[in-house]
């Protein structure tokens, strides 16, 4: 017989139908169905093949603990594997496929693994495939040979390759009390907290609130339990200070009483509404957390316990009472505690025949005996199931007399026919979140034969069955006989999802694994996607027995987040496919409009070149450089870090952080400055402009802007708290255009109003204020390119107007815009350093910047910069390079003295920057080589074997173009 739909009331709305497919076959279900309940209602019992042995598997549970019935959902090109069918709500058009079978679910080639059981025992992969390569097919080499086949045969579902197009979002929430779980204990806690006036959030994994109280009968506060749930939930819904979140699984408990949860907002819909996320990642910071997470029923470990048709008793009852699906017609129960009797009664009420109740205990309670007689069927106390029968579905099972105290089986096995075996091996409180936020270990409760929550390390309390309080509900005693396994030979599964048997656990013990953590890793017990919800305690019990120790001494492993699988998308939230924000200069649109090839510089986008059609990058930067050196060029320098340093102590502050003096800098003058780190190495450079007595505008490199700001704030706050200095990031306040070249002054003179720009008014490093296009500007004459150059600063909101005016004014003078490539080329020609040379390992001396090290004052780094190792003449120091074979150089390539392309040794340094120099007509570069200056005029060889480059270079001064600086001072 197969499962069938009943007319019992429940969550399923039989008035409406939903069509979906499983392995290509079309089925019908109803709103309220999970994929598991809908398929069972259609008579399906086989859901998948097991991980290692490819054994047929059905549905074991009705919830998040499901280890067997994993499916892959397909939405368009997107596949989502390893979803428990018990958690998937069906929607019109849902497409699911089974996993780990080839070529089909009912005929599976890999099932032959069942015959060679010993081959795939504990540690099989480790033993067979690791270790030295001896002989043709051993160890690692053997693994390489077999990997392809094994990867196909073992394992879980296959992830897709298509881009996930779904939307995910994050939500930050705060509350006074967060209640996790909406069973009676959770609902009561939420009601109480709400009554106190605090903000309350209640999370429930299921689409419906109430937990098992909705369907398992019984009474709460003098009324029918299901009715009580309905009343209580609608009462909470009316309160403005309560937020109820269903379909929301709390999966992580973090410091600061922070709970991570995933809300399945649209997973149950055919399509998310526009703007609606598929899942919402909740980060909830609660003053207090109430863990009402309930308990999981445990299976019993016995031979054939994985056959489809063996199901947890509470799950079977829930299918019957909640989903209106009778999971079997002739049902037997196998239990070690009283709770299964109540579930048997529910199954009978739903129309099943209870053929037998097998209880491993010799004596049972009066309540249990009464329920058993109401159910009818045989009551076999002091018995145990020793084997199951059937192919892809259960047809019957064997029982023997069993002594729970000794574990011994006696008498002849007897066959009982049944199509469903409802199993209960006791209950384990769901202590996962508690364990994540617990001080110390979970506490073993000998009566419940289960772990209770540890002492809290954060502000939480556990209530209801999560705390081991099973007094609510049907009121039956859930204390089980302390038996987890029936040892009768045959494969008895502990971890269904990873196919770990009781024998595997014992084998691991025989091989010397005594720590529970090692056991877990070696056997992979509890390491599957279900995180061992059904297997943890039985596995531990078997391990403890093998070790001859009581369970609490063996201890449990600490539960870690996530409690249930979490999609990476949910955590990535709004940043999926767009990992970083873009930082754009005020002239960004202009650059793009001019066909600039934009280049990411940190978060900034900067033009690399303004390529003409058909031009290569090299052709473009050579053209831009030539035009700048012969006429004029303009570059967007808005990205430079800019920090306002203000206050009566601003000048003194700068004296302390820069190697050179700034207190002597006149107003309306700029000075090039260098900063060191505390350890004496070079840190950052830039110009700082004195705008007024107490106002300085500091510029930093684009890359270090944020770090320099933090570093300055650190010194101010931590070491010099008495200094009256305000530091403000004004990088975004100013647009900057640098205009360089022999015609730069003429261009400015033609467009700037309110000030002259001649050499007298605006000398090198001078600052003037004026107007361009009616907009106030500040112009500083300074040069990075080595040309006569000016930086024109305006308010960022006016940057484009000023830029447009400069471009227009430059037309008659041959002005061209240039990008980072040309900027880099001109600075290499001039030997100016950037982050490629100030790389954290070079000193001011290495870069021949010792002239900037003031002897008149201490500064950050001054005490450490003269250490012996830092003043050694033979350190790698800055030089220029000229390629002697007419071929380009590569950044990062090593330099050697020997002319031997095959000898990979004796590096004397490396190349930091390269370009084709239009001014010299050669490929040139900057490098850091041992001895630096001493090697000027000598020959070396670039050695770059990875990129196949070897060839001669001449080492020259890094000032390769206009060394006297006539052009910029002109």
């Amino acid at each position, binding site marked *: 017989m197969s499962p069938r739909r009943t007319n019992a009331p429940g969550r399923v709305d039989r008035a409406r139908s939903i069509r979906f497919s499983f392995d290509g076959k079309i089925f019908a279900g109803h709103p309220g169905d999970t994929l598991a309940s809908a398929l069972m209602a259609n008579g399906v019992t086989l859901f998948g093949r097991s991980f290692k042995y490819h054994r047929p598997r059905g549905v074991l549970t009705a919830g998040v603990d499901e280890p067997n019935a994993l499916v892959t959902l397909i939405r368009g090109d997107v596949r989502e594997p390893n979803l428990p069918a018990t958690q998937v709500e069906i929607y019109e058009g849902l497409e699911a496929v089974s996993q780990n079978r080839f070529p089909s679910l009912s005929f599976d080639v890999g099932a032959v693994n069942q015959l060679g059981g010993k081959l795939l025992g504990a540690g099989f992969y480790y033993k067979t495939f690791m270790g030295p390569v001896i002989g043709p097919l051993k160890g690692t080499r053997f693994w390489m040979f077999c990997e392809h086949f094994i990867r196909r045969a073992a394992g879980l579902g296959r992830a897709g390759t298509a881009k996930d197009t779904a939307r995910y979002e994050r939500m930050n929430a705060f509350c006074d009390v967060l209640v996790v779980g909406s069973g009676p204990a959770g609902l009561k806690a939420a009601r109480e907290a709400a009554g106190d006036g605090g903000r309350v959030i209640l999370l429930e994994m299921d689409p419906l609130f109430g937990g098992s109280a909705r369907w398992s009968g019984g009474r709460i506060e003098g009324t029918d339990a299901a009715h009580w749930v309905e009343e209580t939930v609608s009462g909470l819904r009316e309160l403005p200070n309560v937020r109820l979140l269903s379909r929301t699984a709390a999966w992580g408990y973090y410091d600061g009483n922070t709970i991570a949860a995933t809300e399945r907002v649209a997973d149950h819909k055919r399509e998310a509404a526009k703007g609606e996320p598929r899942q919402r990642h909740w980060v909830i910071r609660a003053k207090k957390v109430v863990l009402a997470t309930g308990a999981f029923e445990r299976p019993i470990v016995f031979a054939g316990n994985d056959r489809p048709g063996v199901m947890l008793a509470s799950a079977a009852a829930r299918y019957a009472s909640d989903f209106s699906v009778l999971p079997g017609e002739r049902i037997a129960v196998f239990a070690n505690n009283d709770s299964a009797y109540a579930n048997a009664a529910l199954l009978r009420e739903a129309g099943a025949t209870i053929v037998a109740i097998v209880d491993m205990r010799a004596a049972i309670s009066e309540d249990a005996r009464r329920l058993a007689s109401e159910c009818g069927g045989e009551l076999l106390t002091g018995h145990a199931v020793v084997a199951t029968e059937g192919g892809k579905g259960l047809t019957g099972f064997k029982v023997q007399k069993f002594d729970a105290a000794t574990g011994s089986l006696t008498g002849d096995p007897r066959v009982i026919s049944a199509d469903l075996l409802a199993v209960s091996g006791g209950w384990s409180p769901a202590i996962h979140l508690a364990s994540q936020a617990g001080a110390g270990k979970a506490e073993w409760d000998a009566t419940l034969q289960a772990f209770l929550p540890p002492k809290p390390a954060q502000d939480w309390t556990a209530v209801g069955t999560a705390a081991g309080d099973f007094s609510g509900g049907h009121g039956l005693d859930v204390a089980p006989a302390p038996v987890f396994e029936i040892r009768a030979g045959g494969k008895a599964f502990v971890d269904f999802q990873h196919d770990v048997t009781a024998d595997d656990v014992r084998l691991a013990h025989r091989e010397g694994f005594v720590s529970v953590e090692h056991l877990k890793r070696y056997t992979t017990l509890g390491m599957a996607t279900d995180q061992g919800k059904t297997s943890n305690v039985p596995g531990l019990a078997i391990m403890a027995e093998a070790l001859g120790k009581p369970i609490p001494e063996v201890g449990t492993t600490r539960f870690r987040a996530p409690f249930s699988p979490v999609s990476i998308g949910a955590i990535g939230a709004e940043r999926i496919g767009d990992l970083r924000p*873009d930082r754009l200069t005020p002239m960004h649109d202009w650059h793009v409009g001019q066909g600039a090839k934009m280049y990411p510089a940190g*978060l900034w986008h900067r033009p690399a070149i303004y390529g003409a059609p058909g031009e290569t990058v090299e052709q473009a930067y050579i053209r831009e450089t030539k035009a700048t050196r012969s006429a004029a060029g303009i570059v967007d320098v808005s990205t430079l870090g800019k920090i306002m340093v203000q206050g009566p102590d601003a000048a003194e502050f700068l004296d302390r952080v820069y190697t050179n003096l700034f207190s002597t800098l006149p107003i309306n003058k700029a000075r090039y400055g260098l900063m060191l780190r505390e350890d004496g190495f070079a840190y950052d450079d830039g110009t700082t402009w004195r705008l007024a007595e107490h106002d300085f505008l500091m510029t930093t490199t684009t890359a270090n802007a944020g770090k320099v700001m933090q570093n300055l704030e650190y010194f101010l706050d931590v070491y010099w708290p008495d200094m009256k200095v305000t530091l403000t990031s004004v990088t975004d306040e100013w647009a900057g255009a640098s205009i360089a070249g022999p015609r730069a002054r003429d261009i400015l003179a033609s467009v700037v109003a309110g000030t002259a720009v001649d050499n007298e008014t605006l000398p090198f490093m001078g600052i003037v204020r004026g107007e361009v296009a009616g907009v106030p500007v500040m112009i500083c004459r300074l040069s990075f390119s080595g040309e006569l150059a000016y930086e024109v600063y305006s308010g*960022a909101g006016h940057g484009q107007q000023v830029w447009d005016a400069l471009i227009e004014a430059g037309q008659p003078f041959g002005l061209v815009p240039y990008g980072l490539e040309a900027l880099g080329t001109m600075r290499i020609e001039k030997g100016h350093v950037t982050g490629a040379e100030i790389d954290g390992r070079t000193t001011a001396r290495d870069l021949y910047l010792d002239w900037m090290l003031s002897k008149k004052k201490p500064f950050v780094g001054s005490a450490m910069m003269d250490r012996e190792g830092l003043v050694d003449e033979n350190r790698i120091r800055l030089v220029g390079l000229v390629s002697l074979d007419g071929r380009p150089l590569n950044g990062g390539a090593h330099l050697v003295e020997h002319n031997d392309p095959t000898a990979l040794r004796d590096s004397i340094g490396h190349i930091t920057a390269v370009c084709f120099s239009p001014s010299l007509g050669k490929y040139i570069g900057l490098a850091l080589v041992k001895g630096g200056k001493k090697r000027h005029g000598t020959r070396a060889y670039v050695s770059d074997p990875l990129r196949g480059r070897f060839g001669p270079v001449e080492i020259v001064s890094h000032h390769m173009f206009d060394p006297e600086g006539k052009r910029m001072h002109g």
Partner: protein
Amino acid sequence: MAEQLSPLGAAWKPGRHNVTGAAPGVVLTETRPGSIVQVAAWPGDEKAVIDAIRAVAGLKLPDGAGGGIATEHKAAFGFAPGKFMVVTQVEGIEAELLKAIPITVGTVTGLSHGRTALRVSGPKAEWVLAKLYAIDFALPAFPLHAGRSTMHHDVFTQIQRTGADQFDLYVFRSFARSFWTTLCHAAEEVGYEVR
């Protein structure tokens, strides 16, 4: 003076987006104030600076961290120890504050170009902002007119609550377009109108 160009460019798409009901969940605007000025007091001189802001802008800042005040055309709030933002629709407040706050008391820094002011208002304002910032937007925790400094990933933001369901955000100008796009994306669920 020439008008400031908005950094939002083509990302500013006025009109209603995904609004299904009668009203959008939030209204998003770039408020484009004439002046955004940072005022900093030396430790111990906070009172003098608060008095100067009151004298110049007519805004009486309450005591306490993150305290703020707002009227229809101007606002001020504390966002860091001894530091305040003063925002007015009219230009030129910076020069007046400079006159009122000598260097012995504190500093005045113009940020009218460097910060972009975005307003999120409407019944779903708290919901949309909670997607982006890990701070508590509920009225008891974030009182009317109070200021907060926080961040959305790399985007540093100062936020002032200027109404029961209205927040003014100040972000660095270079991030404004990228952030605006993120904000619109976050608002799509509840429907939004760009004004």
